[in-house]
C-alpha cells in the first residue's frame, strides 16, 4: 500500500501539529519519522489511520483519499501500535493479540496457529500469553502490542515510540528484534522516534521533522553527510544523548 500526505495541515488549538505536509511513504521500506517532541510526528500516524482528519489537504492510500465510511476496512490493512502499547487490561496477552480474529469469527485452530507464528516472530515467551498486561514487563507489553498490530497480516505497520519507555538493556534487545522483524516481513513500516540512534539502526529512510514540517528526508547517511541546515546537523549530533522525553498523547 502506498500512503501519501498531500499538503496536509492539522491544528490543535492555536498551533499547527502538521503544517502543509507533503510526504510519500515508499512501499516495503522502513521510514523513521524523527524529530524533537511536539514536531508533529505522532500526528502523522493518526492521520494515516483517520483517527484525526486533516484541516486542509488530504491523506491518500493507493492514490485515493481515505474513505469517509467503512474506515474499519482500511484500519485492518494497517497495524498501528500506539505509544505504551495500549493493551486492554481486561484481556490476557493472547486475548489482546487475537481480539480482532475472534471478532471476525476465525476458528480456534486458525487463531492458535496465527498466535504461535506471531509469538515466534516476536520472541515472546509462551508462558506469558496467559498473563494480563499488568503482569507483563515493559518489553513484553511492546511485543504483545506488535503481535496485535500484525495479527491480520497488514500491509503497513505503524509504531509510535515503541522503545521510549524501556530501560536501556531491554531497549537494545527489542531494537535488534524489531529490525529482524521488519527485515523478515518486508512490509511498509513507519516508526516514530525522537532517538537518532534508533532511526539510524532501524530505518531505510529518515524524515526529520520540526514544528510540523519536514526539514530533510533521505537515508541517514545522506542527512549526516549533507545536512540541509544547521538544525539537522545539531539534531543528528545529539545521537543517543537525547533524554527520553515522550510526547504527550493527544
Amino acid at each position: 500500500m502506498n500512503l501519501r500526505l498531500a499538503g496536509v495541515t492539522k491544528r490543535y488549538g492555536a498551533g499547527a501539529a502538521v503544517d502543509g505536509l507533503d510526504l510519500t511513504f515508499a512501499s516495503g521500506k522502513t521510514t523513521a519519522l524523527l524529530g524533537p517532541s511536539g514536531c508533529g510526528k505522532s500526528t502523522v500516524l493518526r492521520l494515516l489511520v483517520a483517527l484525526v482528519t486533516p484541516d486542509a489537504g488530504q491523506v491518500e492510500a493507493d492514490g485515493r483519499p481515505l474513505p469517509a465510511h467503512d474506515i474499519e476496512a482500511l484500519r485492518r490493512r494497517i497495524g498501528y501500535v500506539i505509544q505504551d502499547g495500549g493493551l486492554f487490561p481486561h484481556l490476557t496477552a493472547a486475548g489482546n493479540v487475537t481480539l480482532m480474529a475472534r471478532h471476525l469469527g476465525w476458528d480456534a485452530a486458525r487463531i492458535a496457529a496465527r498466535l504461535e507464528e506471531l509469538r515466534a516472530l516476536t520472541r515472546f515467551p509462551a508462558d506469558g500469553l496467559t498473563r494480563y498486561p499488568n503482569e507483563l514487563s515493559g518489553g513484553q507489553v511492546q511485543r504483545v502490542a506488535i503481535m496485535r498490530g500484525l495479527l491480520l497480516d497488514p500491509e503497513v505497520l505503524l509504531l509510535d515510540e515503541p522503545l521510549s519507555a524501556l530501560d536501556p538493556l531491554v531497549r537494545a534487545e527489542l531494537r535488534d528484534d524489531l529490525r529482524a522483524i521488519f527485515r523478515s516481513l518486508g512490509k511498509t513500516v513507519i516508526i516514530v522516534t525522537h532517538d537518532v540512534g534508533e532511526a539510524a539502526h532501524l530505518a531505510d529512510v529518515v524524515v526529520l521533522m520540526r514544528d510540523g514540517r519536514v526539514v530533510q528526508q533521505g537515508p541517514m547517511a545522506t542527512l549526516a553527510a549533507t545536512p540541509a541546515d544547521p538544525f539537522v546537523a545539531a539534531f543528528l549530533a545529539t545521537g543517543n544523548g537525547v533524554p527520553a522525553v515522550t510526547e504527550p498523547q493527544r
Partner: protein
Amino acid sequence: MTDARAAIVALACLSACTSSGGGPRVTVASKAFTESVILGEVAAALARGAGADVEHRRQLGGTEIVFRALETGAVDVYPEYTGTLTLEILRAEMTGTSGGRTLADVLTAHGLRATRALGFHNNYGIAMTEARAAALGIRRISDLRAHPELRVVLSNEVMSRADGWPGLRAAYALPQAARGMDHDLAYRAIAGGAADVTDVYTTDAEIRAHGLRVLDDDRRFFAAYEALFVYRADLATRAPAVVAAIARLEGRVDNAAMIALNARAKLDHVPESEVAADFLTTHIGGAVTPAARERVLATIAARATEHTAMVALSLLAAIAVAVPLGIVAARRPRLGRVVVGVAGLLQTVPSLALLVLLIPVVGIGSPPAVAALFLYGLLPIVRNTHAGLVGIPESLRVSARALGLPSAARLRLVELPLAMPTIVAGIKTSAVIAVGTATVGALVGAGGFGQPILTGIRLNDFGLILQGALPAAAMAVGLESLLAAVERRVVPRGLRPPAA
C-alpha cells in the same frame, strides 16, 4: 392501561393477586394506626358476610395514599374522619368560592359517598391524670388558666399545627409554655409524673390504661373528627349488600366502645381481626368467621418472598434501563448531563411522595413499590455506567478504533468490560438502597419486611419491629455478598488489583 403498566401489574401481582370465584370483589383499606385497622377488619368481616370476595389492605401509609387509592379505584371503602375530610383532604373545595357545599356534595363530585357517622369521635383532646385533675379540681380546659405551674407536653404534630397548640393557647388564653415530643413518649412522661398535661386522641387506648381525664373543650376549639366510612359510589351498584352491611355500623360505635376495642388490640395484643369479630358478634349480631390466623414462620416466609420479589424486579428493571441510559449518556455528553440530572432529581423525591404520585398510575400494592424502587435504583447505575465509560483512558479508546473494531464491537468487547467494575459498584449501591427502601412498600400495601415494622411501630411492639428489621438487614448483607460473587465472575482478573 398502557402495555408498560400492564406488565408491571402482571409482574407484581405474582404473589399478591389471588382470585376466588363467587361474589363481587371488594377492597377494604385502613391507615397505619390501630383504630383504623380495627375498623377495616370490621368492615371486611361485614362485607365477607354479605357474600363479597374481600381483600383488606391493612395499614396503608397515610391519608394521602388511602384517599388517592380510593379515588382511583384501587380501594373501595375505608374508615375516615369528618375533620380529616373537611379540614385536610377536601379543604380547598369545602371553603372554595362556591361556598356552602356539604361534605356529601363534594364527595359526590369525586365519585365517592360516605356512611352516616359511626357514633364516636376521635378528636384532639387535652388530658391529665385523673388523680392530679381531681386534686386540682380541673374539669374543663379553661380551668388550666388558673394553674400556670402545670407542665404541658404535646405531640410534635399538635405543637406545630395552627389548629393545635398555638390556636388552643390563644383561644383559652393559657399561661403555660409547652414542650413537644413523640406522642407515645408524651404518654410515658405523664404516666411517670414528668408532665401534667398532654394532648390525646379522644379514643386512645392509653386514656384508660394511664387513668387519664379528658378535659371538657368548653370553648369548642377542637374540630369534630367523627368516624364514618367513605366508599366509591359505584360500590352501591356493584355490591349493594356490602354497602348495606357496613351501614349497619352507623351510630353503633360510641367512644367507650372504640376505646375498649383499641385497648384490646393495642394493650392486650389481641389481633385486630379477632377484636373485630368479637365486637361484631356481641354488638352487631350475626355469625362471623374471623380470618385465619397466620403462623409466625409462614408470615416471615411470605414477607421474605414479597420483599425479595420487590427488590429483584425493581433491580433487574433498573439494570435493564439504566445501563443503556448510561451508555447513551457517555456517548452524547449533552444528553448525558440531562439523563444523569433527571435520575438525580428522581432520587430527591421523598419516597412517600413518590408512592402517592404513583398510585394513580399503577394502583396500590406492590406495583407502586416496585416502580418507586426502580426509579430510585436508576441513578447509581446510570451514573456509574456513565462514569465507567467516560473514565476509560484515551489510549485504550484509540487502540480499539485503530484495530478496526466497529462502534458496537468496541462497546461490547472493550468499553463495557473496562467499565464493568464501576458498573457493578453502582448495581451494588442500588441493590442495598432497594432492600432498605422496600420496607416503605408496606405503606402502600406491598407487604415485605416493612409490614411487621409498621405494625410493630403502631402497636409499640419491639419484637415485631425486629421481625422486619433483622431479616431486611440480613438480606442486605446477603445480597452484598451475592453481588460480590457476581463481581468476581464478571470483572476480568486483569482489572482487579494484582494478587499480593
